[in-house]
């Protein structure tokens, strides 16, 4: 659905934000685009949606070059920006004017989502709403547009705690096999339960692009007491750890007894940033294996070892 090949981009010719970036996103997923501030998350989203043009390389969405901003492509993309610039219209007027641009827009869905966000009165003016309320209206509209690609930049910023929970619910309701949602955030805990694939961006490179199944197959998230931690460290299985009140929270290479796994997106993000090389080794093996048609985890690891040996030779 989205293919980025050998893309270079920089706001000035001297300082490139992305160098030779490759990324492939498929439909049916809710991607969490994670990264520190200023690492190019919003820029990447803008490039995908055609708002920014890459210096070299190719960016295509639904097989169309995004920078051409074809009407057909735009009618299947909705971009919820971090800051809101809304026209001085009532909610109902906004829907009347803008919904015809989106052929799959559903009024019923819009009313349903708006109701879930507890916004009943559609005669309110958009400009009179608070930032969080504006976000709820725009998110409801975006979801009801039923576009194949929905991009949301920091959608939970400005939302109160109950609304964040509702947001997760409506997003999970709205996704289907034909759609792709990309949610950029640095508030990873807000979206932990809704994202089913993770893209970690740091210094213009993709550190991790994997779905939850792959991540859970390859990594275990554990709370370890000092004894367990030492034991696993000796075996070289601890990839990344942080102290907490219970002892240590750690990401380990896949362990057999993963019944008590507590997936932690924030820990995964920190591990991806801190242990770039190790993470790359673990996940690139699966990419190589996928490319060569091997899907079983054992096969992947075997493939990885062979790949390594070949490299050493």
């Amino acid at each position: 659905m989205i293919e980025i090949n050998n893309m270079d981009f920089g706001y000035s010719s001297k300082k490139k934000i992305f160098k030779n970036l490759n990324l492939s996103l498929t439909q049916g997923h809710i991607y969490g685009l994670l990264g520190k501030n200023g690492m190019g998350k919003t820029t990447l989203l803008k490039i995908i949606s055609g708002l920014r043009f890459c210096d070299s390389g190719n960016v295509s969405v639904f097989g169309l070059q995004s920078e051409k901003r074809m009407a057909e492509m735009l009618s299947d993309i909705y971009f919820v920006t971090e800051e809101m610039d809304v026209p001085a219209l009532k909610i109902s007027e906004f829907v009347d004017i803008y919904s015809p641009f989106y052929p799959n827009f559903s009024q019923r869905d819009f009313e349903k989502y708006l109701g879930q966000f507890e916004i009943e009165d559609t005669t309110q003016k958009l400009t009179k709403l608070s930032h969080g309320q504006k976000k709820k209206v725009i998110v409801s509209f975006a979801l009801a547009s039923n576009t194949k690609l929905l991009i949301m930049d920091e959608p939970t910023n400005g939302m109160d705690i109950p609304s964040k929970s509702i947001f997760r619910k409506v997003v999970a309701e709205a996704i289907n096999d034909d759609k792709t949602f990309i949610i950029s955030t640095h508030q990873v805990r807000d979206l932990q339960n809704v994202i089913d694939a993770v893209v970690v961006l740091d210094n213009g490179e993709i550190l991790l692009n994997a779905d939850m199944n792959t991540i859970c197959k390859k990594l275990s998230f554990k709370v370890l007491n000092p004894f367990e931690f030492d034991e696993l460290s000796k075996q070289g299985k601890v990839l990344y750890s942080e102290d907490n009140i219970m002892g240590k929270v750690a990401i380990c290479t896949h362990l057999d007894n993963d019944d008590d796994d507590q997936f932690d997106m924030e820990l995964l993000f920190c591990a991806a940033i801190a242990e770039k090389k190790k993470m790359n080794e673990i996940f690139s093996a699966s990419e190589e294996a996928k490319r060569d048609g091997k899907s079983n985890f054992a096969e992947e690891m075997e493939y990885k070892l062979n790949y390594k040996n070949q490299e050493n030779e």
Partner: protein
Amino acid sequence: MNNLSYNRIVLLLQRYFRENWKIDLIIAAIVFGFDTLSSLNQGSSSISIFMIIVLLAIYSGRMFAILGRPQGAMNYLMLPASPLEKVLTGILLSGLYFPIVIFASSLLGIMASIPICAMIYNSGLVMKSINFLPNVEFSPKIIIAVALFILMINSIMMFGSVYFKRKAVIKTMLCLLAFNFAVTVIGLILGWIIYKRNFMLLGIEDPSYTYNIVCIAMAIITVFFWVLSYFRLKETEA
């Protein structure tokens, strides 16, 4: 690929009218009031074509003002319509809709002044003249020339609104003045070199030929800036 859809242009126009009808109505009311009052004062209308051109220029210069606001620009560029459709909508609004609104409200203002004049001066319903261009006799040729001139200014200002992100009206007008000044200076220098005197003092040998040349030049400049606006909008990033 379908780059031009009548349906999407209608949607863009609808969007414009629903969002801006109040502002346009206020402008029309101001023009109406101004022309009613000025007609009362003088007993004859003095709709200044200069004032109308300035109003139209400001309107065209703000056609893509939304591109000056980062979030607004993102929303506008992501609106599902091609750049060609967006520019065509701009041309229809600045070249057709708004001139009609201004001229219509101006004429309505004058007509409204007729019965008031009759009451004040205690005379019959008489309007002595509608004076768009002082000392110029009205003819289809003049109307065509004025229309082309308005379109040319509109197209230049519309390009300015796509090109400059902030204060597009002032910047475009300054550029226009600078360009005009430069052309005049070059003309004077060339006239001096070729004819050994100020070429502006030279008589026009064939007014009809000059008229045609000027009209064609204005039409070409208008289309040129429309095309330029399209390419600029296509290349605009947010």
